[in-house]
């Protein structure tokens, strides 16, 4: 069974230019340690200008541009629940690193990795989950490789307006976040300067501690947190305007 799926996957991977990491045993979904953080927009500069500056800094460091990436997130409300229960949110996310899959994260609850046609299933479940149309957030940008580091520098857009900058730094050679966090921190410092993020809470709050291998859901959880922050910012900005 798995071999057969692998064969089909390999064909699709070639057709869609899926990264090599998902070549073999894609269903194991082991991934490397990665940290997603938001970069504040420099004062007096636009989002685009700040992104350009970061591009320059990465290139000066010796990083090689390697294609582009995108991560998006759609929000669904639960409907038709028993009366008295507050409606919950379900986030369905896609990542260009795994273009054939999608991740569904239930607010404060379980999460799952599914095949791409999970989206179709969501349409069928319209009576239970309703798509919140204006809430689609996505981050798009360039992907850089520097030795064993993978840097994804994206512009976070909401309703097609740029809201912030996301930086994902992935250290591909290591699977244990507690092992290589200092290393990642030093690397981020080398191009972001002093505003280095703290250890992502997904790793810190794991029951098994820092020394269990990271997985793909950790990355998506971090993006979700970042998108949540960006949304809140917008609400705050909206409030201050009023």
């Amino acid at each position, binding site marked *: 069974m798995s071999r057969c799926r692998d064969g089909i996957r390999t064909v699709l991977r070639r057709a869609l230019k899926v990264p*090599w990491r998902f070549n*073999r*045993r894609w269903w194991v979904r*082991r991934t*490397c340690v990665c940290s997603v953080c938001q970069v504040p927009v420099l004062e007096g500069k636009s989002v685009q200008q700040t992104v350009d500056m970061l591009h320059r800094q990465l290139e000066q460091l*010796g990083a090689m541009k390697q294609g582009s990436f995108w991560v998006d997130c759609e929000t669904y409300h639960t409907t038709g629940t028993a009366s008295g229960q507050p409606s919950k949110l379900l986030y369905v996310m896609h990542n260009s690193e795994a273009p054939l899959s999608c991740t569904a994260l239930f607010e404060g609850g379980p999460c799952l990795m599914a095949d791409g046609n999970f989206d179709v299933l969501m349409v069928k479940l319209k009576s239970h989950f309703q798509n919140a149309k204006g809430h689609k957030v996505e981050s798009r940008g360039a992907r850089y490789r*520097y*030795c*064993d*580091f993978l840097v994804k520098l994206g512009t976070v857009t909401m309703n097609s307006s740029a809201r912030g900058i996301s930086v994902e730094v992935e*250290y*591909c*050679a*290591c*699977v*244990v976040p507690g*092992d*290589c966090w*200092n*290393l990642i921190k*030093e*690397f981020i410092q*080398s191009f972001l300067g002093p505003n280095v993020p703290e250890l992502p809470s997904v790793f810190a709050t794991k029951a098994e501690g820092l*020394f269990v*291998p990271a997985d793909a859901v950790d990355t998506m959880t971090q993006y979700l947190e970042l998108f949540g922050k960006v949304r809140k910012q917008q609400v705050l900005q909206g409030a201050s305007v009023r």
Partner: protein
Amino acid sequence: MADIVNVGMNLDAFSQAINAIQALRSSVTRVFDSLKDGMKNKETLEVREKGFISEFQDNLQAVNRDVNELERLSTLVGRPSESHPLHNSGLLSLDPVQDKTPLYSQLLQAYKWSNKLQFHAGLASSLLNQQSLKRSANQMGASAKRRPKVQPSTLVLPPQYVDDVISRIGRMFPEMTIELFRPNGTSAVLLVTLGKVLKAIVVMRSLFIDRTIVRGFHEDVYSEDGKLDIWSKSNYQVFQKVTDHATTALLHYQLPQMPDVVVRSFMTWLRSYIKLFQTPCQRCGKFLQEGLPPTWRDFRTLEAFHDTCRQ
């Protein structure tokens, strides 16, 4: 050399001396012949005795004369020299047809080489005794770099013994799991998993480590057909670097008489990579240099250094 020349000049004396020896021999023979024949048949006993005695005296005088002659000639010939470095083989230089039989020059050449060989062998053995745990010594230049030939007797250790040694080493290091495979015949292939950091494939020949390759913890060590993949290198630069260093370590730890000690030292060294991503460089204090963590481990102290910081 001067003696040889003298001998060459006294060749006449030589031939005279040889003649004198022959004369001496014949005169001595005559003495014994006359003694053997006894008294000749003469008229009276008196005459017989007189004749015999005078003949015997004559013969003895001839012997005496010949001995004197030989002694005289022998002073002319001179003694063959014993102080020549090549002893009697030095006389080969007397051969007048050098072009056809260049024995003497070849002999000198061979002598020079054997002297040199002995000298270098002496040096090498003293060096190797000093550094018995290493396969090479950087500071010693080209002469010590060559890998000593492995004794054939240690290549045919029974597989059971190899299993024992490996399992003992495995018990020594709890954070290291060692699996042993024998994919082709008796040669063992070890799959060493070090914590959650790396996996190393160690190809053994009896108890000698032949080749090693290091990959990331989450990289595949099996090829598509389910066999252990001992050839393809890691996708990550850091593990490619560690593979290079591990190969250096193989050449460094060497003790042909005790191969199990070598395997143990190598595993001890490999174990120091358990903190590959956690230890900063002992020289510059940083984690990263050119995007790589400190990949070098000192062979003696096991301290972590960047590849460029270690000198």
